């Protein structure tokens, strides 16, 4: 593959996208780009649509308006077979792990290899063990998904997402539920994977510290809009109140902790 030509180009380009879940507007005309070879973080409060954004990029949801291109292909105009070919080059780590519950850890990671390659079982074994070793769970290969803790399941899912050596990985909340030791390892792992395999990573997270420590570029989402963007330095020094509130974790400010509701006092004393 000739990577040199478009090394500096954008791998994902989202143009003027609007999207609603039913009557609830999630995105209102947002545009953003993800640079090839970089780690880009998308941050924002819970429920702003970070997961939704990843599903739009992966072609599982279709925007109401606007276009999304991945590797120069318009995701939502591809035929099904072409979309599947494109997806083989995208890894996605689901927030819930999304491991198949009726097969064990080993088979979960072997699944994409068995489906999409003609490798021999012994090659597959080597690859699966390598990926499991990378996430520190080589010893857990015979466990069933329901025997894993939430954090372990997330790491197995990461091993599965990198099984096919994709060009891009989307991490949905990789850090939640990790203890300090595996958290540190995971942060390093994401960084190393990105650099060693020349990947592009998109990290969706609200863990400000960890994400800022490895991201090259950060987008901050809130209320269906991009309210801030820049390198971690720029974000930290941003003069936007919104961004400052989010980075510092203040309960009050332009972003509200509460889902829209009537006045608390009135609500309590209403009969």
């Amino acid at each position, binding site marked *: 593959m000739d990577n040199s030509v478009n090394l500096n180009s954008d791998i994902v380009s989202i143009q003027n996208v609007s999207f609603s879940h039913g009557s609830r507007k999630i995105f209102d005309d947002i545009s953003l780009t993800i640079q090839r070879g970089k780690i880009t973080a998308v941050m924002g409060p819970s429920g702003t649509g970070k997961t939704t954004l990843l599903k739009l990029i992966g072609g599982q949801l279709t925007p109401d308006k606007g276009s999304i291109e991945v590797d120069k292909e318009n995701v939502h105009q591809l035929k099904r077979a072409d979309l599947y070919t494109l997806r083989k080059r995208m890894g996605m780590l689901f927030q819930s792990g999304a*491991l198949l519950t009726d097969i064990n850890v080993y088979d979960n990671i072997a699944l*994409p290899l068995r*489906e999409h390659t003609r490798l021999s079982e012994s090659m597959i074994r080597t690859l699966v063990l390598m990926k499991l070793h990378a996430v520190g769970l080589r010893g857990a290969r015979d466990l069933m998904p329901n025997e894993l803790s939430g954090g372990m399941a997330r790491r197995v899912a990461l091993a599965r997402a990198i099984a096919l050596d994709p060009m891009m990985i989307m991490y949905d909340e990789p850090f939640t539920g990790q203890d300090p030791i595996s958290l540190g390892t995971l942060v390093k792992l994401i960084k190393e994977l990105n650099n060693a395999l020349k990947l592009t990573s998109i990290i969706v997270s609200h863990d400000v510290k960890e994400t800022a420590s490895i991201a090259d570029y950060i987008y901050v989402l809130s209320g269906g809009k991009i309210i801030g963007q820049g390198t971690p330095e720029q974000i930290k020094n941003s003069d936007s109140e919104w961004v400052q509130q989010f980075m510092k974790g203040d309960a009050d400010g332009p972003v509200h902790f509460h889902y829209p509701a009537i006045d608390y006092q009135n609500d309590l004393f209403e009969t």
Partner: protein
Amino acid sequence: MINFFQNLGKVTLSGFSKLGRSTFFLLQVLSGISSVIPRPRLLIAQLYSVGVLSFLIITISGLFVGMVLGLQGFYILSDFGAEEALGVMVASSLVRELGPVVAALLFAGRAGSALTAEIGLMKATEQLSGMEMMAIDPIKRIISPRFLSGFLAMPLLAALFSSIGVIGGHIAGVEMLGVDEGSYWSQMQANLDFQDDIVNGIIKSIVFGFVVSWIALFEGYDAIPTSEGVSRATTRTVVNSAFAILALDFILTALMFGDI
């Protein structure tokens, strides 16, 4: 009044849209079957689980239904002094009607509801989305093997039900009430027609297996991905399958045996 028409319209529209989705789903499932054949392991695993789920309940129910047929048949036939015909009465009721219908109802309640819950939970826990993002078509990998196994298992389970039922009839009629053993079997062999009884019974159970598997898998796939959505879908599988089985049984019987 306007509300009534609005609701009527809504129900009709959502009914049609569900019909459309389920037909499209069926076409996808059927075209996915070709990719199951080179991988028999997927199919065997599902046949095993569907078979094991239903084996015990089919056997026990078959035995009791056969015994009841033996008792009731004896009381009616003995009024006419025709107890020797007990064997053929028990066997033809089972092979023509009760085997396919009751086995299908039990299958829907046992295996069908389990299929719906399994697929619905896979959807709710994002396992199906996860597969799509790995570029693996969940219909081909998950749904089609289950469909094929339900479709293949149903005739076998109906045959099992009927065979055990014949033994149950023997226990009640011959061993408990003293019908002549030789005439129980010989009357059955002489009067049961291969085409009319056995083939038609098998056709029925194939049709029921097809419809129940379709309903169960579609309800799971179409379920709202929450615990409540999955539980409702499971109920719908049992209810809709029962209606479908009984209505189709009438239609098939009319076509096969009636002169309609």
